[in-house]
């Protein structure tokens, strides 16, 4: 089922939804949002795109198999847990940079942890959905 309307719409919806997901991810520390929801929204963006153009096309846009996002995300999360130990703190201590950055806000280990969760969620959801949808034929 290919619909031209949906195909055209997703061309614009994909970047907007992805931007929205990043927005949710970044604001999570202060307002409703966070890595988990952000990751789910980003997954929905790709799922919508794959409905219109097929899972192969979506993977081509992502330039990698969604499975490869999982180790990246896990690695980032684990790294953010370990990094404080190099500075003599117990693992998982939240470390923050003094200065605030424009748009992003404060940068700290918790942010990287959230980005890790974000990537894992996208990886998991898309791996499951794409594997099943590519398995259809």
């Amino acid at each position: 089922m290919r619909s031209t309307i949906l195909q055209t719409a997703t061309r614009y919806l994909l970047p907007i939804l992805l931007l929205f997901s990043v927005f949710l991810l970044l604001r999570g520390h202060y307002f409703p949002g966070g890595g988990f929801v952000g990751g789910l929204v980003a997954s929905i963006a790709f799922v919508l795109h794959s409905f219109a153009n097929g899972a192969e096309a979506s993977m081509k846009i992502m330039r990698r198999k969604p499975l490869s996002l999982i180790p990246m995300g896990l690695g980032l999360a684990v790294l953010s847990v370990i990094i404080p130990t190099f500075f003599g703190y117990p693992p998982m201590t939240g470390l923050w940079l003094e200065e605030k950055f424009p748009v992003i806000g404060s940068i700290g280990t918790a942010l990287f942890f959230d980005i890790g969760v974000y990537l894992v969620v996208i990886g998991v959801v898309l791996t499951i959905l794409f594997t099943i949808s590519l398995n259809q034929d």
Partner: protein
Amino acid sequence: MLLTVILGLFSAILMLPLGNKIKTRWSGLLALVPAIIFLYYLYYVPAVSTGTIYTQILPWVPSMDINFAFRLDGLSLLFALLISGIGTAIFVYAIKYLKGHPYFDRFFGYLCLFMAAMLGVVLSDNIFSLFIFWELTSISSFFLIGFNNDSDESRTSALRALTVTGMGGFFLLAGLALLGNIAGTYYISELVLARDLIIGHRLYPVILALIFLGAFTKSAQFPFHFWLPGAMKAPTPVSAYLHSATMVKAGIYLLARFNPVLGHTELWSYTLMIVGGFTMIYAALHALFRLDLKGILAYSTISALGVLTFLIGLGTKEAIIAVVVFILVHALYKATLFMVTGIIDHETGTRDISKLAGLRKMMPWVAVAGGLAALSSAGLPITFGFIGKDLIYAATLESGDTLAIILTSLAVGTNIALVAAGFMAGIKPFSGKLPETLQDTPRPYAALWIPPLILGVLGLIAGIFPGVTGNYFSLQAADSIFGGNTDLHLAIWHGVNTVLILSLATLGTGILVYLANKPSAGKLQALERLNVISPQYIFDLLGRGLLKLSQNYTNVVHNGYLRSYHLKIILFAEALLVYKLWLSGPIHLDWENLTALSIYEVAVVLILIGAMGIVLSTPYLLTAVLAMTVVGYCICLMFVFYSAPDLAMTQFTIDTLTTVLFVLVLYKLPPFLKLESSTRRYRDIAVALGFGTILSLIALKVINEPIEKSISQFYGENAYLLAKGKNVVNVILVDFRGIDTLFETVVLSIAAIGVYSLLKLRLKSSEKE
């Protein structure tokens, strides 16, 4: 000390990336690993022989007092030298023996792992790290026994060995934990100080039984001995290393190490003497009937382990000295004999003793090594074995009037059989006339016969210079086992006394038995008829029973239907919750304090009920799924009403994705077929209603309870102070309870990998067709 263990483990890991290079060009480097470790420990000999003790602690789980605590005293050093020294010989030998084998790298990976684990066992002072290394030796032994994994027998033997030693390890853990709890310390060096407390405790017999089970299974004592002959399915270097010289001595090491803590009581002594005494004579007699060279050696090893157990049970000064010397003697000659057997097998292709003769012409140096080992095992004067045998007799003779006669005759009987067995393995294949069939036996490589020759000659040197052996390698070890001063002084000549006469009589009778004993297939078959009452048969019977039981259990509980799993899980949860609700008493509802309903809430609940009605009545799967999504969205709205935006957002996206997932899967399913009977349907409705009712009751109950606010208050107050976040929910997720989140993401990843691999696997198998 820690470094040597790590070196072993590291070498094992290096086999993964470097496997192909090691198979071909770098194979010689492998022998460096044990050689370096051997030199390292040799360096400690002078200091340790004067009583210095080295310790090293690497914290692991300090809060539970589980650490890698290493302690190098005389006993540990003796074992470390045996492990690395014989290891060096075995490595050199095995590099040649297995050259060109497709799993060459894998083999040495296991061997390095074993060596590291075994070093860990003998160096550990913390009982838990000792246990971990203990189990690692069992595991590496499992892989090595099953090394020829295309042979059914190898696999069975490996599994049997793992089951027996693993079961023993389980008991050992229980025993060690009890011991540590009673004494209040997990360090063996401190346990010694708590000796009176432990021995006087009412659980002392239990501890003893558990630790004995661990030691007896590992060191192949009757009735757990049967795994060791089976373990001979491993390549010969493994039999020489693990199953004669080192791993099987771990049980002996354990008994020796705990002798000062638990020993010198009647229960300890009599159990060890009875089990060890029976094992040594039983296995020695068995050895005489074997045709397979490795079978002979396996049974004579079991017998030697019995001797050691027996001597530790005896527990006198003489006995402990005999233990130390015999450990050394036995390791030297038995490893040699195994390697000699391996060479014979490698060159002639048979290990059947009735077919082998006259090989001295083809492999003179191998014959020399075999002869030296056989003589040492027989206890010929000036060999090290002579001193060992002397000490054993001296120990048994010391033990009082009637007991001395019984024990000594037991020891003499065992030794006569062992002399004969040693000659069968070390001399028989080389003596006599070379049969026609073996005329074109190739000559073995030097790398094969040099290691056994060195070990054989070492046995001779150790015997010629007993003072050196005694002072540097045995004295402190004997003291550590005895828990006091043993005044060990080894000598080759004690003058003409009862011991010497007994020794010579043993030797003479042993040679006569060797000459008279003609093992044949017929005798072996007659012996095997008794298998029905053997421990192995009973063990296998139990194993099959267990398999049958677990199969039946699986068929009933895990029938593979998702609906059945769901039903069981939900019913179980309901039972638990009802029980808990029942205990907590009646629910009082205070209608006054509940907030009033708003029009929006009523509307959402009505939509929700309508959607559920559609789910239950629609004939189309897709409609049902969409209606379920409506239910989910309604719950989302509820979250919004009660100001939980994070929850609402997550629920909304998850519901959307679940629907997508459903649609993708349903696409392949046939239309809604009514497969289940209406009674089943009513049952399901009842279960679902029950679950809903229980959860509602719990919610009402929660309103009743005084709310514990300290936790939420803490998060609320500290979210910004400690974690610089204003969204408490998110701060809890990524900071306060971040480790939980981390593991949740790991679980998610596992699920994704599961789905991915399942579907990919299915694709592959369909592609084949």
